[in-house]
């Protein structure tokens, strides 16, 4: 555990010290998240609030849609930017090879590198999601119907969505470390639009109830599938494979 914490903290510091990249990531992510929030507010919340008696259940669904997509987008962009960048850089510069020649376990290196990319994205995602929750509530709901929030919303946005990306970070780093880094990146690039489109469609069409357990369960299901793949693939991780993939 000590090893994982040590490498994770060091890798986070190192990743965030690329100022241009970090600032660029922050700006792009915040802009997209704010844009998406505005889009959903104008398209969904505004019309729903114009009725004389707004449907609270429907508003819960819309609010969770906003929160969930905000969190997913932050996590997705973060993984997209930092996983590829840090893996490519560390593999070509011999950082990974040097770490593997120390007493550190190769699995701990992999886990720590995955966490180092995931954690800053998760923090930003949670902060922006919380900001979206407060903003939508205080702008639209509190003056008329009071604070809108359910535990399922919290679970799906603050827990389930990050867990999907945590599992995905493990998978991407596993593939990137033992094979070509670009292969891992392709998965991230494909995953974000697919999961977003799928979830938005399922929620909007009322197939998945975003304000209750179905969305949370669906997310845990996706995370479970990814983690099964990770458990299977992690058997292949060796120092030799990582060195040869450079």
């Amino acid at each position: 555990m000590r090893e994982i914490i040590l490498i994770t903290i060091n890798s986070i510091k190192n990743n965030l010290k690329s100022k241009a990249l970090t600032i660029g990531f922050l700006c792009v992510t915040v802009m997209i998240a704010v844009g998406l929030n505005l889009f959903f507010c104008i398209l969904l919340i505004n019309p729903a609030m114009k009725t004389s008696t707004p449907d609270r259940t429907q508003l819960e669904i819309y609010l969770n849609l906003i929160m969930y997509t905000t969190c997913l987008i932050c996590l997705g962009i973060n993984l997209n930017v930092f996983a590829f960048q840090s893996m490519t850089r560390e593999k070509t510069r011999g950082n990974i090879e040097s770490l593997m020649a120390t007493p550190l376990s190769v699995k701990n290196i992999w886990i720590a590198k995955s966490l180092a990319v995931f954690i800053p994205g998760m923090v930003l995602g949670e902060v922006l999601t919380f900001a979206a929750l407060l903003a939508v509530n205080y702008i639209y709901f509190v003056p008329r119907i009071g604070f809108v929030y359910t535990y399922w919303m919290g679970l799906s946005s603050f827990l389930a969505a990050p867990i999907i990306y945590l599992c995905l970070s493990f998978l991407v780093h596993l593939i990137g470390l033992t094979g070509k880094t670009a292969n891992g990146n392709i998965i991230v690039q494909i995953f974000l639009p697919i999961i977003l489109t799928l979830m938005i469609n399922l929620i909007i069409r009322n197939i998945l109830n975003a304000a209750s357990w179905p969305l949370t369960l669906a997310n845990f299901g996706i995370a479970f599938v990814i983690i099964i793949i990770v458990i299977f693939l992690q058997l292949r991780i060796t120092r030799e494979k990582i060195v040869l993939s450079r």
Partner: protein
Amino acid sequence: MSLAISIRNIKKTLGNQEILKGISFNVELGDIFGYLGPNGAGKTTTIRILLGLFQADSGKLEILGQDIKLSETRRKIGFVLDADGLYDNMTAEENMEYYARIYGLFKASKRISQLLDMVELGNRAKDRVNTYSKGMRQRLALARAMVHDPEILVLDEPTSGVDPSGQIEIRQIMINMAHKKNKTIFLSSHNLDEVQRICNRIALIDRGEIKLYGELESLRQGMSKRTVIIETAQIIPESLLTELKELSHLGLQEIRNNSIVLSPQQGTEISDIISILTGRGVKIEEASKKEASLEEMYSAILKETESS
């Protein structure tokens, strides 16, 4: 002498290519061991096996009598790989601290500053590594390799790409580490001059096989015995040269104006040659055994391999 590294019949195949074909050698404690070979000979693969990055297909490797797979054994080795593995966005001090912590040293600031002073980077300790020259990076990598006070240092071409003055500095650091800090150094290098200057024992690998191995001085002496140069005061007369050619045990190789080069057979000493020549009225100004340079040894061995 106890062994720092013992390699016995190590074989390694990568893909379809047999990279190491059963190599064996020992590195004794206190050695500065030069590991030479052309590109693709198997040097880096050997180093990766030494550091536990690759697993040998067969054979036995022992580091200070222990298996390299053990975490305890890895703690006894410091290393500089071909890619230095330094974090560009971090300062020299941060890079050192990180590795100190990896090796379980949490209060190492004094040791870190001593090591940075040793490699003459004390005044740049707080600068980011991406502002360093190649030579400075290599010096920092050497200091980092020493942070946990290992008994063995494995260095993969530490002077590669470094300018001549940087090479001298790095060489001096390696000598200091070996002599003042009693470290065993395993040095893989293309730089024959460097190996000749600092190593006491060498191994030459080519196409996955060890072609030459032993103490550098005895290897050089062994090769030097074959060539003797005699400088004379006057030009040697043709008749005497014909006579010398007939004395096959002298092995006359080359005739220049005032000198002859001989490759005498075993048992024929320089004194024998001198008495033959002086007995025939030749005034000798100088007689010397030609010192085989490492470069000559290296070329000769590689040529032999190519022709076979």
